[in-house]
């Protein structure tokens, strides 16, 4: 028995050391999520507008295009559930916050989870999803490698760190944006976006594949009512805090839009209009906007830097309009 215990211990030692080292690395590793959170706290005394939503808003709205201090808190696959909780966790710090842009896209109303990324929001913002029990987060705290990010993700962190160090001589936080981002770019007010226009992905096959992935989630979703209820609650909280919520749908390429399920698009619009009427708030629908050309998109459903600047300017003029009207009233 002693021999068995001794040998089992020896055998486990190497994996244990590797996992502990990876845990140490993962805990100290930055991510776009952590950068955004820390950046928001750093700028807490200036932020007047925040942008929420998924990757469409994350890469599609350049905060520098606004006259008021704007911070982009949107993130890849970020659901409305996390939009709300991230904002609420920062709300006590954001004393100057006046406007919150909430992006509602084709698939936003159908899921509260971000899948594997739920844990990323937990590590960065401390936001938990109620579909997991506390033990999940306890384990994620104990070992980010085994129970948090997953070993695969931590190893990809490590690989990227090594590659970036060797190639560029510095760490580059591009884990969540992936390819298409200029390595020289840095995150500014929570924003980083794609460089250029990826011609090869503007094909009907790609559009269909992308939409199919969304449709699968939409068809199997039973969360819509819950997501809407949560959004209602979020809007009420913002209004009660004298913050103006503005709903918007980010632009997607018009050829791509032809393949979207019409019933889903119409249904989304109906729900959004209902919300706007109920709370007397504005909705900016850029989905089929003629203001955006093919060259403004990195791929069919993500604006690039050029498009993000353009969209920010339009949103800014809308804010200026509101500001002017309110100053006239005063």
């Amino acid at each position, binding site marked *: 028995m002693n*021999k*068995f215990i001794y040998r089992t211990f020896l*055998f486990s030692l*190497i994996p244990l050391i590797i996992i502990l080292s990876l845990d140490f690395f993962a805990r100290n590793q930055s991510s776009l999520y952590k950068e955004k959170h820390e950046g928001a706290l750093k700028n807490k005394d200036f932020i007047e507008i925040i942008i929420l939503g998924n990757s469409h808003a994350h890469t599609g709205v350049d905060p520098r295009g606004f006259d008021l201090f704007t911070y982009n808190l949107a993130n890849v696959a970020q659901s409305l559930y996390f939009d709300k909780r991230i904002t609420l966790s920062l709300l006590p710090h954001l004393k100057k916050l006046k406007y919150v842009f909430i992006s509602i896209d084709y698939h936003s109303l159908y899921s509260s989870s971000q899948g594997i990324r739920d844990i990323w929001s937990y590590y960065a913002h401390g936001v938990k999803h109620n579909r997991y029990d506390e033990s999940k987060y306890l384990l994620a705290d104990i070992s980010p490698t*085994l129970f948090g990010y997953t*070993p*695969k993700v931590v*190893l990809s962190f490590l690989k990227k760190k090594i590659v970036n160090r060797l190639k560029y001589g510095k760490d580059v936080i591009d884990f969540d944006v992936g390819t298409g981002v200029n390595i020289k770019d840095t995150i500014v007010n929570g924003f980083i976006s794609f460089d250029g226009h990826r011609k090869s992905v503007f094909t009907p096959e790609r559009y269909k594949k992308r939409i199919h992935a969304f449709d*699968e989630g939409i068809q199997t979703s039973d969360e819509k009512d819950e997501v809407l209820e949560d959004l209602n609650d979020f809007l009420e909280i913002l209004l009660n805090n004298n913050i103006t919520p503005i709903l918007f749908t980010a632009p997607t390429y018009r050829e791509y839009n032809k393949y979207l399920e019409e019933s889903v698009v119409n249904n989304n619009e109906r729900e959004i209009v209902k919300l706007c009427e109920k709370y007397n708030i504005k909705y900016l629908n850029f989905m089929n906007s003629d203001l955006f050309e093919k060259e403004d998109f990195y791929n069919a459903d993500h604006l690039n830097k050029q498009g993000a600047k353009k969209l920010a300017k339009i949103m800014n003029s809308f804010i200026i309009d509101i500001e002017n009207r309110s100053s006239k009233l005063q």
Partner: protein
Amino acid sequence: MNYVAGILLSSTEKQKNRKFILALSCILSLGLLGVFKYFNFFVDNFINSFALIGIRLEARTLNIILPVGISFYTFKALSYTIDVYRRKLESTKDAVAFFSFVGFFPQLLAGPIDRATTLLPQFYTKRTFEYGKAVDGLRQILWGFFKKVVIADNCAIYVNQIFANYETLPASTLVLGAVYFSFQIYCDFSGYSDISIGTARLLGFGSMKNFSVPYFSRDIAEFWRRWHISLTSWFRDYLYIPLGGNRGTKYQVIRNTFIVFLVCGFWHGANWTFIFWGIINALYFLPLLLLGTNRKNLDAVAHNKILPTVKEVMQILSTFAFTTLAWIFFRAESIGHAFSYIGHIFANSLISAPEGSDPEKILPFVLILIIVEWAQRDKEHGLDFSKMNIPSFAKIMIYYALLTIIILFYASQQTFLYFQF
């Protein structure tokens, strides 16, 4: 119930009384199984049958939760009573031993359905720790985890997508979906069995082999000698042979075989898909019975050879294809769903790249499985290194490699398929 039946059976020599005790014990055991597992099925079908002739009946179904593993421990307990009745086993008064046998935790949820004759006596004796057994148990557990969390769970993601959206997918994807389900169910169930047997071994208990490389079978009879061995041998010993087995006319043998497959299908669940799956397998068996070739391939394929012959490869592939076709009924939600799935395979073009989220990602693991199982086909499990001259360092490297694969490529948690039975 079975415990008391065993004691009563040993206390009487009168054949009439013994028969009565056995019958009562079987009726009560199977009755409980029937209520929990099949009551709603019978009620629903009763109502539907009357609805066909225009009579609307209103009956209440039971809103009960199926106790997990009930089919497995009911059969274990039944084997005890029947073996005591047959005088193959002494009844026990040792309640701790009996209930430990029935509720033996590694086997409780999904078997193997170990016989009382082999497992129960192990609870009477004091077990001493054996280093070799414990290490081999751990190896088997490791191999089981590889099959379950790497292959079965990854296949499940792909299979679930395909079976849910088969109407819109090309035939090549549907074929791949069916093939992946064959690997999913095998790796899920045999993976569980490996974990279960390995755990028992770690604790010093011997357990029967439940799978013996079934997908290398050369005909369907061989497949059924290698698939879920503890269940198929249970049916052979406690149903097929009492029915007459191979004795009697060809008609009687065919009848017995059909009954066994029907019951086997029904054992898997209260759904017509399982019954149909059983019938299909019985039909596969039929030509072998008629030609008298059902006991042709009793030894392991390519025994003492490295590779199989071309003929053997063709036999293995055709058996796998037939089995995969039958698994479609096992996996489908209804018989209509299964037929529709098969219909779409033949309706659409087969010559197109399979769609889905990178189905080829699973292939390397399936290849590892096939290579290891082929190399180890006459061993107890994939990592059984007995009688092999492998240096310790190489073995340790194999364990680390498997552990790394498990940690890096495990799929999100999927419940064991056989827990539902």
